[in-house]
Structure formats: C-alpha cells, structure tokens
C-alpha cells in the first residue's frame, strides 16, 4: 500500500510517500531523518504533541499554558483534554513544572511562568 504524507515536523512541510509492505515501511521524499521517523510513525502509531491550558486558582492570570512533554497517540487527544479540564493549579508556576503525571505515558508540563 502506498500513502502520501506531508511532514509536519518543521515548516518546510516535505511531501513524502510511504510504501507499506507487511511490517516494513519505506519512505521517500523526506529531506531529513526526522521526516522519515514521522512517516513511519504515521503508518504505525501516529502521535501528536497536545498544547492546551489549565486554570490557575490564585492569580489575575487565570490560565497557564501546558503541553504534553512527549507526543501522545493521536486518538487520545480528546482524553488528554478531558483530564486537563478536571484540574486546576496554584501559582507560582514555572516553565517545565509537572502539572499532571502519567498521561498516556508522558507528563503534562507548564509552558508559561505564572509568578
């Protein structure tokens, strides 16, 4: 089976082709190894980084932005969001602080300083 995939790893957006035969995926059209890795993932286990916000209880800045430290399975994005909606955090918060442990094998970390 052949699949056309646009690489989303960097703004160049290389148009790639993946040929899937059984367990092997052969990629062409990429300009760097990251593209190849992305294409193989897309065919086997597509993943995405989720960025969102979490409410802050005790500051005028009411939201802190967060992200999944590593990408999570594409199909789990809605689940990640649902978990984030349930929690609130207390300032001060620093970039990299863990907001939630163990979400689909990774952590949710803060991406903004709320002092």
């Amino acid at each position, binding site marked *: 089976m052949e699949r056309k995939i*646009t*690489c*989303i*790893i*960097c*703004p160049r*957006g290389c*148009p790639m082709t993946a040929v899937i035969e059984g367990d092997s995926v052969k990629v062409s059209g990429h300009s760097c190894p990251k593209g190849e890795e992305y294409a193989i993932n897309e065919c086997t286990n597509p993943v*995405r*980084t*989720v*960025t*969102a*916000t979490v*409410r802050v209880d005790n500051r005028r*800045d*009411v*939201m802190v*932005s967060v*992200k999944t430290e590593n990408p999570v399975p*594409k199909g789990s*994005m*809605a689940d990640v*969001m649902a978990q984030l909606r349930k929690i609130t955090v207390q300032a001060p918060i620093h*970039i990299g602080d863990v907001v939630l442990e163990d979400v689909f094998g990774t952590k949710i970390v803060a*991406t*903004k*300083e709320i002092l």
Partner: protein
Amino acid sequence: MKKHAIVIVGGGPAGMAAAVAAYDRGVTDVVILDREPRLGGILQQCIHNGFGLHKLGRELTGPEYADVYAQQVAERNIPVFYETMVTSVSPDRVVTARNREGILKIQAEAVILAMGCRERSRGALNICGTRPAGIYSAGTAQKLINCDGYMVGKRVVILGSGDIGLIMARRMSLEGAKVEAVCELMSYSGGLTRNIVQCLEDFGIPLYLSTTVVQIHGQKRLEGVTVAQVDENRRPIEGTSRFIPCDTLLLSVGLIPENELTQVCGIPMDPVTGGAMVDERCMTKVSGIFACGNVLHVHDLVDYVSDEAERAGKGAADFVREGKASEGAYLQTKAGKGVRYVVPQQLRKDTGDVDLFMRVTQPFGKVKFTVTAGDKVLAVAKRLKAAPGEMERITLKQALLQDAEGTVTVELEEL
C-alpha cells in the same frame, strides 16, 4: 527629560531580541517600553508549538520561546517600562509615553520600532448582514481562550485559512467546539501545509477554497452565515450560496503592521508591506530610527523576527557609536516579475553580505529567483516550490555587491 542611548518601542520577540543584540554590541543603555504587563507580545497567546526550530534548534511553544528572550533581557538588567503606552516618536527621537505615573519623555540617540501588527477586522471586509455577538477576529478569540479562559462559542465557522485561522480551528476543536468549516477566498490556503494537516485533517474539518462569507445572520447572537463560491475576480457566483448554522465566526483575514506612530513621525512607508522603508540594518529613512519584526513586514515565523531584530539592534548600536558616519552610498531594491515585495528597500553595498527577504505573488511550483543589478547577476536561488505564505530569503555576497550599480531587482521564473 530623561535620556537613553536606545529606546525600544514594544517588548514582543522583536523588541526583546533587538534589546539584547544592542546590549551585546556594547551599547548597554537600552530601555524597552511596552503597553502590556509582561514581555513577549503576541507570543503569550500562541500556546501551540512550532516556534524556535530554526533559531534555537528545538521546538517550543510561543510562551516558552518568549521566555528564552525575556530571560536574556533580565540577565542583562535591561530596564522594561511595563503598562507604558508610547504615544509619539518625533523625527529628532524624542519618545513620549504614558503610564500610571503620568507622562514620560525620553530623548534617545536611536529608537527601534517593534510594535508588531494587529488583525484586520470585520469593518475592513464589508460583509453585509446584522451585527450580532459571536464575531471575533481569530487572534482576539485566541487571547480570550488561551489567556482569559473564556470559551467564545460552540459551533464555529472560520473565514481565512492563514496560519492563525488554522491554529484556531484546532484549538476550538480541542476545547470541544464543532468547527463546521474553514472558508478561504483565494484558490489556495495562505497557511503552512503542516498546519492544514495537523489542524484541519486531524480533526476532519473541511476547507472550502474560493469561498467566502456573504451574509451574517442573527439578532442578539450569531445564528449562521451564508457562504458562496467566488469567481476568479473574487466575486460571489450566483446559485452557489448556502447557509451554515453557527454561533461563532472567526475572522483570520490578514494582519496590518501597527504603524500609526511611524506615520505620524513622517517616516516614508512602503505601500506594499505596510511598513517603513528600511536599509539592510533596518534603519528607516529617518536617521536613527529603526524598525523590525511585524511592524516592518508581516512574518510567518517568529524565528525570522528574532533574526531581523538582531540586525536592527546591532545597527542601532553601531549608529549610536558612529552617528552619521555610518551612512554610505545606497542601492535601491525592487520587486520584479512574480515577486510582491522586497525588504530591505535600500542597502549599503560596503557592509558585508546582505540578506534580501521577499514574498511571491502567487503559488508556484519549481522556481528560479534571479537577483540582478544593471546587467550583473548578484545571486540565483532555486526552490522546489514557492508560496505567498512563505517568506523567501536570498543572500547577496559582499564580493559581488561592492561594485554593483543600478537597482537591485529580484524576479522569478517558473521552471
């Protein structure tokens, strides 16, 4: 009146990078003025990732990218006047601003304008219909959701497929809204392909090209929009209109450099970019006043904003030290066939390699850019594709520039 060597108007990524570059070049008396209570400008609301790959070699979110530079500003103890709105800049470099303490006047030796841009509004579009609640510019909605924690609607149509519109389609979907459609007036999207994939295709959101919103419905709250296909002259085609129910319309229809201060100062402007005309160190045609970032021309990648701002910061520092002596013989630049604009609009030919930045007029496949001056070719660059949404950069080598004569013209040829 206070005195400072360099005054920077705006503390977004452009203002911060310019401040740090000027300081590191040896002019340490630098101050930043910003109307907001924190540094970072528009990046504070751009919580998605994709920033910094080119400049910092790692992928960051907007607030993280801003923080890298905010820390550099703090490490150098560069003073920042927060919640301070600059109201005028005079040609002799007096900066007037107001904040809670009153009116502030600073005589600067050099000024760097870094006010960013703002979004085009509904008024600029002339869509007919009622004036209900529920119509936002995409950036305003982004700020309300990401910074103020206020969800703007449940059923959404987005007009405009530039990157901000695409990013907001994903953001609204993740927050549980149903994005019915993204409509684009042109026959191609202005956004990066990666954003079409990860913001629309991932969420099954349809993109309708050559389509626009022709009417707005609803009294108190938006109840829906009528969309129609447009012909090659961008006029709605009869019989193609249909109604899409929605409670929210986001407009992502272009950015306008925020140049009121620049214009009142009498700085000559480029009608195509909407920014000042500058030379290769980002100095405007008013001596000692520089401009960089989105106030100069709209950038799609913040990484290039930082690069440009560093040139402006270095240029301003050199100007402060060398004064008028730094003005040399200028060559003018010009956009030729297939090219919409070129920045800088003029350049000195004896200052080292010079980067030209440009946008093309329409999407092209494989192209060859040629830069000429008189009958001399200064540079040739090939690209596999070129699109108006993606800024191109071409470097001119000092060795060829130094004895160039005539207007530096960039044109392209489709291969």
